[in-house]
C-alpha cells in the first residue's frame, strides 16, 4: 500500500499559524519519475514542487510547520530513548512587532520513524505527526540562538539581538522561567555553546568582537574574556573531547583554536581567504574539524596540521550558515546555507569513484541535498536520539523535521535466502 503524499503548497495560504503537514513515505521507487528538468531555470516555487515530488525517494518522513514569526535557531532536546514524542526549542524574531518568545515544541512522530515497532501499517493514525507548542517563555528581543545545557537539559541559554544572555529553567512557570540575565556583550551575538563536559560552562561570541566564558551556576559576570578577534565573532564551539579547548570564527578572516587555560592568545590561528560563519568539531575524531562561510565551501581540517585543508567540499551556492557533525554516524556532516539548502555529506566518499551521471549531480561525498526550504536556512539540528532525523528552520517562518530515507543510508544489499531461485 502506498500513502499518497499530501500537497504542501496549501500551507503557504493557511492562516493557521501552527499547521503541520506530515507524511510517512512508503512509496515505491517506481513511482519516482526521473525528469531532466533544468533546475537552474526553475522558480523557487517550481523547485519546491520538484522537491516535493521527489520526497518519496529521499525521506522516511517530512513534516513542515508554518510559524507566525521566523526562528533564527533550532535545537532538538534530549529525551528518554527513541520515543515518538520528541521536543525541540526555537525562538521568535518579531522585529519589534510583538513580544518575543523562547518556545518548546513537541513533535509526535509516526511510530516507525521513531525506531519503534512499526505497528499495523494499515493504521492511518500511525502515519501522521503532530506539532504542538508545549511552553513559551517571554523573551527580551529576538532569540538569536538557544541552547540547552547538556548536564541538565531543563536549563536553556539564549542570546539576543543586543548580545544579552538569558538563562531559562523550563520546568518553572512560563513567566518566571527566566532565572538569570548575563549582561556583558554590547552587540548582537551568534555564538553560544555549552561545554559538553563541564556543567554550567558557557561560551558566547558577539558582534562586539569579544568571546566571553561564563560559569552560569556561579556568577553573572564572565569568568574570562577573549579579545583575540578584530571583528564580529560569527561562531564559538567546544571541542567534543578536550574540555579546555574551543574554536572561534570571525569576520576578521581567522579561525582560532583556544585553550581556556591559556588566556589572551589563541593556541592556533588560521588565516582564511574569506570569513567563516560556522565551525564544528567532530564527535568521532579528536582531530577533525569543519568550518564554512561566505565562499559556500566546507573546509575540513586536521587539528594536528591546519596549514592547509584536508579537503574542500563544494555543493552550496551561497554562504553557509551552519555546519555540524552527526552525533551518530562517523563521517556524516550536515551544512545549511543561504542557498535554501541543507546538505548531508559523507566524508568516507571523498575521492570515491562515481559514474558520470552521479558526477553530474555533485561530488561523491554529497550524499543528499534537502531542498525543501524556500528561503535561506538559518540553522538545523541533528536529533540526539534518532539517527538521520533533523530539524531545520528558514527565514520565511517555516520549520521542517525530516528523516533521511533508509534506502540512502543503508549501502548493504538485501540478503538472498536461496540464490538458486534466481537462475
Amino acid at each position, binding site marked *: 500500500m502506498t500513502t499518497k503524499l499530501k500537497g504542501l503548497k496549501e500551507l503557504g495560504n493557511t492562516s493557521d499559524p501552527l499547521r503541520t503537514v506530515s507524511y510517512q513515505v512508503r512509496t515505491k521507487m517506481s513511482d519516482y519519475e526521473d525528469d531532466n528538468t533544468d533546475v537552474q531555470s526553475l522558480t523557487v516555487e517550481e523547485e519546491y514542487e520538484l522537491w516535493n515530488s521527489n520526497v518519496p525517494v529521499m525521506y522516511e518522513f517530512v513534516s513542515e510547520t508554518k510559524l507566525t514569526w521566523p526562528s533564527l535557531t533550532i535545537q532538538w532536546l534530549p529525551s528518554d530513548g527513541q520515543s515518538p514524542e520528541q521536543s525541540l526549542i526555537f525562538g521568535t524574531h518579531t522585529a519589534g512587532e510583538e513580544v518575543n518568545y523562547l518556545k518548546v515544541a513537541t513533535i509526535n512522530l509516526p511510530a516507525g520513524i521513531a525506531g519503534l515497532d512499526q505497528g499495523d501499517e494499515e493504521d492511518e493514525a500511525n502515519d501522521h505527526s503532530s506539532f504542538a507548542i508545549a511552553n513559551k517563555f517571554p523573551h527580551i528581543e529576538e532569540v538569536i540562538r538557544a541552547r540547552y545545557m547538556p548536564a541538565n537539559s531543563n536549563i536553556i541559554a539564549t542570546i539576543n539581538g543586543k548580545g544579552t544572555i538569558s538563562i531559562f529553567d523550563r520546568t518553572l512557570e512560563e513567566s518566571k522561567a527566566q532565572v538569570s540575565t548575563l549582561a556583558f556583550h554590547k552587540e548582537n551575538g551568534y555564538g553560544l555553546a555549552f561545554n559538553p563536559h563541564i556543567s554550567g560552562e558557557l561560551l558566547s561570541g558577539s558582534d562586539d568582537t569579544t568571546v566571553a566564558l561564563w560559569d552560569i551556576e556561579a556568577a553573572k559576570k564572565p569568568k574570562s574574556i577573549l579579545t583575540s578577534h578584530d571583528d564580529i565573532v560569527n561562531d564559538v564551539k567546544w571541542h567534543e573531547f578536550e574540555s579546555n579547548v574551543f574554536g572561534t570564527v570571525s569576520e576578521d578572516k581567522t579561525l582560532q583554536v583556544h585553550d581556556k587555560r591559556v588566556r589572551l592568545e589563541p593556541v592556533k590561528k588560521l588565516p582564511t581567504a574569506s570569513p567563516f560563519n560556522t565551525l564544528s568539531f567532530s564527535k568521532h575524531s579528536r582531530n577533525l574539524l569543519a568550518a564554512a562561510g561566505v565562499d559556500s565551501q566546507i573546509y575540513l581540517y586536521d587539528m594536528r596540521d591546519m596549514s592547509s585543508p584536508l579537503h574542500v567540499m563544494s555543493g552550496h551556492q551561497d554562504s553557509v550558515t551552519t555546519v555540524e557533525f552527526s552525533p551518530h554516524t562517523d563521517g556524516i556532516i550536515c551544512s545549511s546555507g543561504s542557498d535554501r539548502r541543507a546538505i548531508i555529506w559523507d566524508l568516507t566518499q571523498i575521492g570515491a569513484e562515481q559514474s558520470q551521471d552521479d558526477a553530474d549531480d555533485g561530488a561523491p561525498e554529497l550524499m543528499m541535498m534537502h531542498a525543501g526550504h524556500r528561503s535561506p536556512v538559518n540553522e538545523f539540528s541533528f536529533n540526539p536520539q534518532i539517527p538521520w532525523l533533523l530539524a531545520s528552520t528558514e527565514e520565511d517562518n517555516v520549520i521542517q523535521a525530516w528523516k533521511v530515507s533508509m534506502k540512502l543510508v543503508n549501502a548493504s544489499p538485501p540478503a538472498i535466502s536461496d540464490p538458486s531461485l*534466481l537462475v
Partner: protein
Amino acid sequence: MAEELKPELWTTSSNSALKLSLVNDENAVQFSPIFTYPIFGQAEQLFGYQDLNILLAFDSVTFKPFLNIKYTKKLERGLDDVEGSILKFLPEGDVILKDEVEWVDAFNGEREKFALPNSESKVAEYTSGGESFAIFKVHLSDPNIRQLHRRMQIFTLLFIEAASYIDEDDSAWDIFMTFNTSTRQCIGYTTTYKHWRYINGQEFDSSEKTTKRAKISQFIIFPPYQSKSHGSHLYSAAIDVWSKEEKISEVTVEDPNEAFDDLRDRCDFMRLSGSGLSSSIPEDVPIPRTWLTEQARKYKLSLVQFTRLVEMILLYDNSPNFEIQVKARLYQKNHEVLTGMDSDTRKAKLQEAFTSLKEDYARILQKVPNRRRVLPSDEENAGESKRHKKE
C-alpha cells in the same frame, strides 16, 4: 545572390578544419581531433572562411607549438576568430605563427637542451618494437615539466570528452609520463590526483594510518603511438607505484570512457590473476561481502571494480558459481525493481542482463594476452593462447 549571403558557403566543421601534427626528424604525422567544442564552441563550427585549414603542429620532442591558418577567402565582418580561440588554450607568447622556418629553428634550439626527467623519477621501463621506453612520475613544480605540460595539455581537450585544464598550483597532482628513451619523445601521460580519504575517526586519529585515494584523471597516448600497448604500460606503472605507496588505499578513475574501461579491466585482471587470487575466491554464492571488501582493500580497488574482476576470473576459470554470483549481484543491485515482478519475469530479466554482461566479459578476456585457459567463444585460437608469457 551574392555568395556573401549564403552562410553555408562560409561555414566549416572545426573538427575537420583542424589538423594536428607531431613532427619528428623524418616527417610529420598528421591526425584529426575528436572534439573541438571546448575551443570553438558547442556546434563545432567555424564561420567566415572558405577552404579553411588550421594546422596546429607540435615538435614531437619539445612540443613547441606552431599554428598556421589558411583559407582561400574570408568575409570582412562577422567571422570567427580562429587564431584567438586556439591561442587562449596554449601558453602565452609560446606559439610560432605562420613562419615554419622560425618554428623549426626554435624547436631545434630547444631540443639541444631538452632532457628526460631525472632518473630518480623513473618508475618503469620496457621495450616495444625494438625501442626503449621509460615512465616517469613527475610533478608540475618542476619548471621543465610545467612547460611541457602547458604545451601538451591542449590534447586533453581535443581527445578526452569533458576534459578541462588542471590547476597547476594544486600540489596534489602527479603526472606519469612515458618517453621514448632514445628519441626523447613523450608518448603519452596521465594526470593523477590524491584525495584525502576518511575511513573513520579512530583511523584518522592514529596518524600513521592517514590514507588517500589516488585518482586517474586524464589519460592520453598521443595518436601516432596508439595501439602499441603503451596505455597498458602507463596504467600498470601508476598502479605499481601506488601499490607500494602505503598511504594510498584505493585507486579510482575519473569518468572513464569505454576504451579506458577495457584497458583497465585487462590490466587489473592480469594483476589479480597473476597474484593467484583465483584459488582464494570463496565457494559461497553470493560471495560474502566481507571477503570482497577485505580483498578489494588489499588490492586497492573500489568494491565495484574488484567485484567485476572476481566475476571475470570466475568466467575465465569456467567456475560453476559464475552465473549465480552474477545474477545474485544483479538482483541485489536492482532489487527495488525486481521484487515487484513475478518469478518468471524476474528470471528472464536477470538472464537477459547476465547474457549481455557475460558477452562483455568474454570480449574483454579475449584480449588478455596470457590466457591460462581458453574461453568457449574463442576456441579457434586455442593453440596460441596456451603459451604463458609474462607481459
